[in-house]
């Protein structure tokens, strides 16, 4: 008898829920605002003048618990620098399949170059396509950050974007 009572009680519960408001968010027609601290795919930001913030220090690579980051640094050409520092990341790769989106790389970055965005739609058809290189990681947009004073050596070059790229990047192209 108690079993029958339990069954009836259960049926009553589901019946009540039938009429309640549905919680489905019809993604992707409607997207909810995510928390500002949400950690999505990475981005390497630029200063307001277009220079890359990343100085190729490799600290993010060391900090990453999943060994997802590979940084190869190269010296900046003083006449046409990529970053305001002495070096820049001439090769920069993040394997998004290994990444656990812990954000430790972001914490480790001394120049605040590395930033985890809100972007989470990362489906791809192959594993290789999910190893993001410079082409996908370095943001094309300039951020509202000015180059800090007294941090970098005084050879701030002019911004080089759109005027051809230094040798290292071409090497990267060939590899890809």
């Amino acid at each position: 008898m108690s079993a029958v009572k339990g069954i009836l009680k259960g049926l009553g519960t589901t019946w009540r829920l039938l009429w309640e408001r549905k919680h489905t968010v019809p993604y992707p027609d409607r997207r909810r605002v995510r928390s500002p601290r949400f950690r999505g795919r990475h981005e390497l930001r630029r200063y307001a003048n277009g220079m890359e913030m990343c100085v190729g220090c490799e600290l993010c690579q060391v900090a990453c618990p999943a060994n997802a980051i590979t940084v190869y640094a190269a010296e900046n050409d003083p006449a046409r620098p990529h970053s305001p520092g002495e070096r820049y990341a001439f090769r920069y790769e993040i394997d998004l399949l290994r990444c656990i989106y812990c954000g430790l790389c972001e914490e480790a970055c001394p120049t605040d170059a590395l930033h985890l965005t809100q972007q989470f739609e990362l489906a791809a058809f192959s594993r290789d396509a999910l190893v993001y290189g410079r082409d996908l990681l370095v943001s094309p947009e300039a951020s509202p950050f000015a180059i800090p004073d007294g941090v970098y050596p005084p050879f701030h070059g002019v911004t080089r974007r759109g005027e051809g790229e230094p040798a290292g990047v071409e090497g990267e192209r060939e590899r890809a």
Partner: protein
Amino acid sequence: MTALSPLLWVAGVAIKSLILVLLLLGGFAYLLLFERKILGYFQFRVGPNRVGPWGLLQPVADGVKALFKEDIVPAQADRTVYLAAPVISLFMALAAYAVIPVGPPLEVAGYTIPLSIADPGAGVLVVLAFSSLAVYGVALGGWASQSKYALLGGLRSSAQLISYEIAMALNILSVLVLAGSVRLADIVEAQRSLPYAIVQPLGFVLYLVCAAAESARAPFDLPEAETELVAGYHTEYSGLRMAMFFISEYIHLITQSSLITLFYLGGWLGPGFLHPVAWFVLKVAAVLFFFIWVRATLPRLRYDQLMALGWKVLLPLAVVNLVAYASWAALAG
């Protein structure tokens, strides 16, 4: 009433069979959508809503998808039996419906057209026979796959499907005793004053439980108990063949719901403002809704619990029910 010429009769049966098969397949497709929607609502979701307005074209999309899925026949399988099993399942499921009347006979141009493909005197027995034969599809499918999982699943499913037949048959007997006939139409007509759900509430509830078990519905969906088996007897099936097993399970459910409607809910009888067939369809839909509701509520039983329930609870109660109504019928003359 004029007797039909043999040729007309054959043509009529052919047309009715075609209509019935199309209706059942369409009914299956939309029952599936109905179930997914209702289950969604029970679980705070909205269910399928991407294809067509309110997800109404989802069955079409599912059908196309099933058609183009890879069809695999295991190398070791007994090819003939392997290929025949889903066909047997589906055929038996469809055939069982042939004798179920969905309304009183239609009078068209002086001819009487019964609203079932055949109207044998022993209609109930025909349905039972075909429903029981469906076990062959399950057992053969499990055996022919040459896979341990499928074999065990097939044995389990057969054991389940037969452990309910006795209790179920006894419940049907109580109905037959009350109605005094084995013809489905007579059973419906006998309920003109009072549907049998009110006359024998115990039998009604017992039959609901048996019907759920017979059509392998939750909480008795043991054939494909995903947590214990890979998928049961159809583990090795894919694509359209898998779909045929799936379809026959759902058509069994439709058949059982129709039988419940005929046996206990007064079939097509109802207040005159709707056509009798409409009443029948509405009642069947209500029973189907009930089964979906139960599925959304109850967790799956364990295998031994199911057996214990079948033999130790349902069977004795069904006997009590039968004896009570049989003696009552005998005393009342």
